[in-house]
């Protein structure tokens, strides 16, 4: 499993764009990069998944450079409700079980 490294915490203000970068130097050819969000006392929630270049959905964008050794989750115009823990994961393909190994994540705090 490729190890991921992301900042422990980040602070920002409402209306700002927030970029959370994750490094995954040992990512394998068939691995996907996936981000989850977890609010306090709730289950993790899938945000976005990508393989290369850029992926955008209604919640976020995911930027993946050509070498795929890092990725950046971009949250446009954050609000107080975006305060949560964000997990960067590298999904293992090809195994019989697709367990998710969660790290400590990035605790994002949004201020008014």
């Amino acid at each position, binding site marked *: 499993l490729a190890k991921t490294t992301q900042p422990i915490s980040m602070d920002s203000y409402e209306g700002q764009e927030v970029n959370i970068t994750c490094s995954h130097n040992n990512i394998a050819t068939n691995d*996907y990069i*996936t981000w989850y969000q*977890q609010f306090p*006392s*709730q*289950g*993790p*929630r*899938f945000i976005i*998944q990508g393989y290369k270049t850029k992926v955008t959905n209604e919640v976020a964008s995911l930027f993946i450079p050509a070498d795929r050794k890092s990725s950046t989750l971009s949250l446009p115009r954050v609000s107080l409700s975006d305060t949560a823990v964000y*997990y960067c*994961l*590298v*999904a*293992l*393909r090809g*195994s*019989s*079980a*697709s*367990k*998710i*190994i*969660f*790290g*400590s*994540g990035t605790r994002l705090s949004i201020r008014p």
Partner: protein
Amino acid sequence: EPEVTQTPSHQVTQMGQEVILRCVPISNHLYFYWYRQILGQKVEFLVSFYNNEISEKSEIFDDQFSVERPDGSNFTLKIRSTKLEDSAMYFCASSEARDRQGLQYFGPGTRLLVL
């Protein structure tokens, strides 16, 4: 949007008692999982289940734990004799296909408190 549901939302039990946590995965999903999160700690994988059998389990998932899919919709986690350290949030998750590994849908969790 389809959701994973879990019952109960909270459970308080005495040490040594058996508890059963229930989950209803998303209906067309084939892979099911249990995770737990001790307060203030990481989400930890417990077990994965496919085709009516355990696919993989972690070291946490010892003989006190068991999982079952008793019918076409429910997926349960049983703890036979609870310990104080079993107090945690327990999350059920499901996924549609193995090819989309990493894309799992989590339930809201059951908060278990063992006294």
